[in-house]
Structures are given as C-alpha cells and as structure tokens.
C-alpha cells in the first residue's frame, strides 16, 4: 500500500509538471493565434503535439517502469505508436476537433470539456462525426487494463496508449471512470449535435413542403406534418409510368391479394359458436367418394382472362422448393397473333386470381419444368426446337435460349429433363427427329453432347420419333424413349460395355399401338427398390406397367425367360400389366410417396387415381375438375397433363385443353408422406413378382392371362 501511495504522489508531481508545460505551450499557441487567426488553431503543428505526447508517454512509462521493474517492458513509445496507427489518427481528430485541450488537466472537471466544445460552431465539429464509433473500443481496452493492472503489463501498455490518444492522459490515468464518463458525454454531445442537425433538416423540409402545400392548406393545418399535396397531371404521369412505381404496384398488389386469400380468420372466436366451419367431408366427388381416405378434393383453379384464354396446357409442374407454386406451360392463342406464342405461368396456390410470374417465348412451349436443383430456374422446350431458360428473378423473356441452327434442335422439343446432382447436372432435351442434346444450365449456346436416336436394324427406316423420354432415378446415363409408333426404346447417353451410345438395339418394349404420350419411372423412395417399374400412357386408350431390364445386364441371355421372342436379335419385352381405359390417356405419373399409387388423366377430362395394391382393374378414385369459370361447357374438356407435388405427395395439378389448371388434394390413403406402410412396398414387389411369373408362364396368351392371374390373387387377399 505504501508503495502504491508513493506511486500516486510521484504521479501527481509529474502531472503538475506536465500541467505547467502545457500552460506554457497554451500561452504560446494563444500568441500565435493572435498573429495568424483561428485556422491555425485547428492546424496545430504536429511536431509539438508529437513531442508532448512522447513526453507524456515517457512520464507514464517511467511510472510503470519504477513500479514494475520485472515487467517485460512497455516498449518504446514510438514502436507502440507504430503498431496502433488508428488510435493515433483518432487522437489527431479529437484534438483537432476539440481545439485547445492543453488547459484541461487531471483536476479539471470533465464537464468543462463539454462546455468548451459547445461554444464551438458546428462547422469544425463535423469532424467529430467520425469519432463516435471509436471511443467504444477504446473504453473496452482501457477497463481491461485497469482490471489487470496489478498482474499484467502488456495490456497496460495498450491502456496507456489509449490515454495518450485522448490527449488528456492525466484525467484518464487518475480515474478510468472519468474517461468512461467522458466518452459517454462525448456520445451525448454527438447525439446532441445530431439532433440539432436533424431538427434543422426537418425545418428545411417543412419549409419546402409549406411552399407546396399551399393549395390544400386547410387540410394540412390540422396536421402540419402532413403535406397533402396534390400532384399535377404531369407529375402523376411521371410517377405512374415510372419503373419504380409499376414494380411497386406489382409487388404490393400481390401481397394484398395473398392477404385477402388467407382464409383462416386469426381473430376467430369459437366461443361465439356460429355453427359453421365444420369440414364438409361429404362434398367429395367421384366414384370412390365413399371412403374418406380416398377422396379427392379440389382446392384451387387457375385461369387468367388475359393469358390463359384459348390456350391449351402443354405441361405442368410443381416447384420442389415452394410446393405452393404451380407451373403451367401453354400453347399459343390462335386468335391473338400479336401476343407471344409461348407462355409459362407460375401460379401460387395462395393467390388463385392471377399468376405469380408470367414468362414468354416466341414459340409454343411444349414442355416446361422447375429445375430441381435451382428453385429460381425454369426450363422449357419450344415448338421451334429451342430449349429456354427463365429465371424468376428476371423479366418475362427467357434469360437463355439454345440456338436454332444446326447445333441445336430443329424439330419440336416435346420432352426434356434435368439429370445429375446438385453440382453437376445437365439438361437433356429430345426433339421429335430423334436428336437428344445435353446442355449445361450455364451455357445454352452450344450443346455439351449430341446423340441421335435411330431406329434399330430390323425397321425399314432409320427414323424414330420420340415423343417422351424418362430417366430412372438412379442412373442419369440411361433413359427410355417413347415413340410415335408405340414402341419404347432403351437408350444410352454414352458408349458402355456391350452397347453403343444411342438406342439399345437389343431390347424393345412393345405393347402400345399408338403414340406413347408419357413415361414415368417409379420414384425410389422407400425400403424396396422399385426403380425399374415404368408406367406408360398412350393414345391407344391404355396405360401399361413395365419392368425395365437393368441397362448393364440387358444382354439377350438375361431376358430370354420373360421375353416373348426376339425379332432380328432384339428382345421384345411385353408389359407386366395393362390398364385399358375408356379414352385416350395423355399422362400418367407415379405418386412420389405411395408405392402403388399413380394418377392419370384422359381425353374425357377425368383424373383417375389408381392403387395397384388395392385394385388393378378400376381406379380407387376418379374425379373431374369443377367447371368454376363456366367456360368449359362448349370446350373440349380433355386433360393433357398431371403433376404431383413431390414432397408430400398430397396435391395433384391437372390441366388440359381449356387452359385451366386445377389443383386437387387427395385423401390420406392416396397421398401424404406419413403413414406409408411397409406392406405397401412389399405388396407392390410381390405383385410384380407374380406378374412376372404369370408373364413367363403365359407367354403368348398376352395380358389377359396375366391380368386374370393377378385378379385371382387380388381376390385371395
């Protein structure tokens, strides 16, 4: 303690000395001021300050040095300064701003500092604006130094450094709290200045507004703040035609529309008991409406007076990232030659009145889908042969399109897909002349790979007209192509053991007698791999189920059992199961969650849900879109496309000739990720096994026999 007191005494002496020196210097500056005027006050010659600072540092170091001889040494002041250039700058700013700090010494009340600055005009004070952020870190370092004053030397160096920054080191040395208070006051002072500035600006604004508000002065008198200024015609025009304004209207009206559409009333008071709100369970339509779990409920219909009119839906998709977004591609409106031919609308299930996004193309869009790897991107295939890429963040025109020259497609692109993984994926597009091209999403100017599908040898011509392609989940190098003539060919993107790139001549899936409209591989999501099951829909009024030979082992020896017989070397595979329908079947899709469930749409405008675990002869549920708009009466009601929502598997979008997109929700037995039982998977597996056995036994008798066998089994269960 004694030692400490000594220290303090010594310190006080040094401070007194310092004070004297400063006073001297102050006088000096005052003299100089009287000679050269006030500007020199701010532009104080740095050498002198540098000098005093070094003095101060020396003194301080002396103090420390005496009390702690064993310390690692505070280092030379110059070196320390070099290491913290920022503090030096702040010191300069501070002293420059406050003007003449020297008279304020240890004993001086801090309030004086404040008063001193307040007398200054605002002009020179603007430099302080840069400081408010700086005192805070300074405080932190300093208080650290105080806490560890007894034990630690290096922080002390730092803390004293910060003292010298203040140029009021004596105050700081004496009581650290003083410096804290100082900085708080500094902050207050800054705040004060800011407020004053703000007030001034506000006054200015008010003055400016007062000029404009003259015409409606009576209104604005009650609320002086509100300038109910009336815009002139020109101003109004300028505003309403500005990009900003239109953009705003576009966005904000969407928000309001969604808000209006929000059906649930969060203020609902159930205690009031109005007696409504009971779920209308029995409004389900269709044949299988009896069972609640199998009902299909229409939840939304999308139609736009301006854009959907006289267009047909050519493709549908539901965003994998935002399940409420439904994409619909349209063909051209023959009665509006000035509108873009191709159209893609993205609908929001929470906003049925208008599309969330509208995209255009110069040619009819025949197929479109959300990129599974990038939620903002939409790819589409056009009648002109272009593959187009739209971005929901960009405008209506496609951000990228493929060339129409020889490098790209020259025939309509009816089918495309994105295959690969998140970081390595390709767009594979297929046109009706049999050309399959691979593109990277980043660059559509040139195809990455080119493949020409040609009909395998026994046929008379080389021509092959693929109408649809489908990739299995597991293998992006292998795909099936359904053709106009009704056959389905397996194709390889690359050469592989035993097969060249292109159509695999060894296997051919025959069964359809008319163009194949749709192919869909089973989504492998469950415990049992059913990825080799394929559904095909055709305009020959049927849907067929196939078991695809694994691409690697598709040599003729492996399939002899199941095949009915080869023609010219090609093994002809017959369908496992045939689902004859009463109309053209345009599209068929597996449920993404239920192993035995699929949906199909037909030319009669019916949506049918099948579950091969339950029945293979009749659909478990069947419905048609409601005629909400009252425009379908005279129009063809045929449905072209069906799409499942991929994550939950609860919603289905359908669309067709009349351009109306209808979204249905299926009951818990037909969709929903939860509640998929293990038996359903094994049931499908068993069924496939039985069918295969039946096919092997009854080869030649055709599907009747196979169907009969299955029926027998179905009856047993």
């Amino acid at each position, binding site marked *: 303690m004694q030692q400490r007191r000594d220290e303090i005494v010594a310190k006080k002496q040094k401070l007194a000395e310092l004070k004297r020196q400063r006073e001297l210097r102050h006088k000096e500056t005052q003299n100089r001021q009287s000679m050269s005027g006030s500007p020199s006050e701010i532009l104080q010659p740095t050498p002198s300050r540098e000098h005093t600072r070094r003095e101060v540092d020396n003194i301080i170091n002396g103090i420390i040095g005496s009390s702690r001889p064993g310390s690692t040494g505070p280092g030379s002041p110059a070196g320390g300064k070099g290491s913290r250039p920022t503090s030096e700058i702040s010191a300069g700013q501070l002293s420059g701003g406050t003007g003449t700090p020297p008279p304020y010494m240890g004993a001086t009340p801090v309030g004086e500092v404040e008063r001193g600055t307040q007398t200054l005009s605002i002009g020179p004070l603007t430099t302080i604006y840069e400081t408010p952020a700086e005192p805070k870190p300074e405080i932190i370092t300093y208080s650290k130094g105080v806490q560890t004053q007894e034990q630690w030397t290096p922080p002390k160096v730092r803390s004293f450094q910060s003292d010298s920054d203040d140029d009021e080191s004596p105050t700081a040395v004496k009581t650290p709290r003083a410096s804290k208070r100082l900085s708080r006051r500094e902050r207050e002072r800054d705040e004060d200045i800011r407020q004053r500035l703000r007030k001034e600006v506000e006054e200015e604004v008010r003055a400016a*507004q007062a000029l*404009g508000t003259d*015409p*409606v002065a009576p*209104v604005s008198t009650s*609320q002086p*703040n*509100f*300038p*109910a*200024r*009336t*815009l*002139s*015609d020109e101003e*109004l025009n300028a*505003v*309403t*035609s500005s*990009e*900003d*304004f*239109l*953009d*705003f*209207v*576009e*966005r*904000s*009206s969407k*928000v*309001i*529309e969604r*808000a*209006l559409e929000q059906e649930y*009333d969060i*203020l*609902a*008071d159930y205690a009031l008991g*109005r007696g409504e709100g009971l779920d209308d369970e029995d409004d389900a339509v269709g044949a299988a409406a009896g069972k609640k779990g199998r009902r299909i409920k229409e939840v939304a219909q999308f139609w736009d007076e*301006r854009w959907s009119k006289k267009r047909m839906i050519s493709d549908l998709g539901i965003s994998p990232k935002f399940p409420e977004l439904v994409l619909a591609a349209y063909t051209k409106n023959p009665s509006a030659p000035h509108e873009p031919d191709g159209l893609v609308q993205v609908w929001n299930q929470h906003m049925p*009145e*208008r599309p969330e*996004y*509208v995209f255009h193309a110069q040619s009819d869009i025949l197929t479109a889908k959300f990129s599974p790897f990038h939620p903002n991107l939409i790819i589409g295939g056009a009648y002109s042969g272009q593959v187009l890429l739209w971005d929901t963040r960009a*405008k*209506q*025109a496609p951000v990228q399109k493929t060339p129409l020259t020889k490098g790209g497609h020259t025939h309509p692109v009816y089918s495309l897909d994105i295959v690969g993984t998140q970081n390595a994926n390709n767009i594979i597009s297929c046109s009706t002349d049999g050309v399959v091209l691979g593109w990277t999403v980043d660059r559509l100017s040139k195809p990455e790979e080119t493949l020409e599908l040609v009909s395998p040898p026994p046929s008379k011509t080389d021509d092959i007209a693929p109408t649809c392609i489908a990739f299995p989940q597991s293998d992006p190098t292998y795909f099936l192509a359904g053709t106009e003539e009704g056959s389905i060919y397996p194709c390889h993107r690359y050469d592989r053991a035993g097969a060249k790139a292109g159509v695999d001549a060894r296997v051919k899936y025959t069964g359809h007698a008319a163009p194949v409209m749709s192919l869909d591989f089973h989504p492998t999501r469950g415990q049992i791999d059913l990825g080799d099951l394929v559904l095909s829909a055709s305009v020959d009024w049927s849907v067929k189920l196939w078991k695809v030979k694994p691409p690697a082992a598709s040599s003729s020896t492996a399939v002899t059992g199941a095949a009915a017989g080869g023609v010219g070397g090609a093994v002809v595979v017959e369908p496992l199961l045939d689902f004859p329908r009463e109309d053209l079947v345009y599209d068929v899709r597996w449920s993404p969650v239920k192993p035995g469930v699929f949906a199909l749409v037909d030319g009669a405008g019916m949506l049918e849900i099948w579950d091969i675990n339950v029945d293979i002869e009749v659909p478990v549920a069947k419905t048609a879109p409601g005629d909400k708009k009252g425009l379908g009466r005279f129009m063809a009601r045929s449905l072209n496309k069906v799409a499942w929502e991929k994550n939950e598997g609860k919603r289905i979008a359908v669309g067709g000739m009349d351009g109306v997109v209808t979204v249905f929700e299926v009951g818990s037995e037909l969709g929903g990720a939860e509640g998929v039982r293990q038996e359903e998977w094994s049931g499908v597996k068993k069924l496939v096994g039985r069918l295969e056995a039946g096919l092997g036994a009854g080869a030649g008798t055709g599907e009747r026999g196979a169907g009969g066998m299955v029926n027998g089994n179905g009856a047993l269960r």
Partner: protein
Amino acid sequence: MAHNAPDETLAHLTRLGQKPGVQSTLILSRETGAIVRTSGLISNSKSANPNSTLPASSENTSDGYSNGRKESGIHSAEDVARMVWTFIKSAGSMVEELDKEDEVKLLRLRTKKCELIIVPDVKYLLVMIHDTPPA
C-alpha cells in the same frame, strides 16, 4: 414483372379494387404522402387531381361493395391518406426504435368494421381497406 405494360399492371390494381369486400385502395408517395392513386374513395378537395382516381372507382362507389363504407361515414381520400401516412410514420419510428436495422414490411389493422392492409415500400405505400370477413 416490370416489363408489363403500365396498363396491365394498373389493371391488377383495378381488379383488386373490384374484388368483393374491398372498399377502397390508395397509393401514396412514401416520402410526401401525396396521393398517387385511389379507388373507392371520394375526394373532397377541389384541387385534387381527378386523374389520380382509377377509372373503376366511380362505378365502384355506386354498387353494393361500398355500402359498408357509407354506413361508417364517408372518408375523403385526403383524410384517409393523412391518417394512414401519420400512422405508418409512427409505426416506422417505433420499429426503428426497437431495432435500428429493422423496418416495417406489412401492416394489417383489423377493426370491428374493416381491415386495413398497408404495404409500405421504399417509395410508395399501398393501402387497401376491406370488410372484415364475417366470423
């Protein structure tokens, strides 16, 4: 999409104003509070620019949708604009005091009789007044 023709974008607004239950819409300049567009509101000021009201608003006021509004007393567009503007200003300052980096994105004000939906943006704000759904 910003590429839309102005008419088309404004048609959205018109349609919005004609939806069942919607009493009125109003677009103000965020900065000055000047009325850019209204529908379903009557302007009492002589100096008001008639062009700022949507074409649909005249027939809109005469049909059934506006009945509810008449019961609750006719507000002039200027009054509503002023009240909303000051309201959004105070809401904005409240949010700013809570968190300096925050800002108001949407205001839904439900009263016994109607609901105001206010969408503030950098430059403009859109106000829509509609009947509270009966519940």
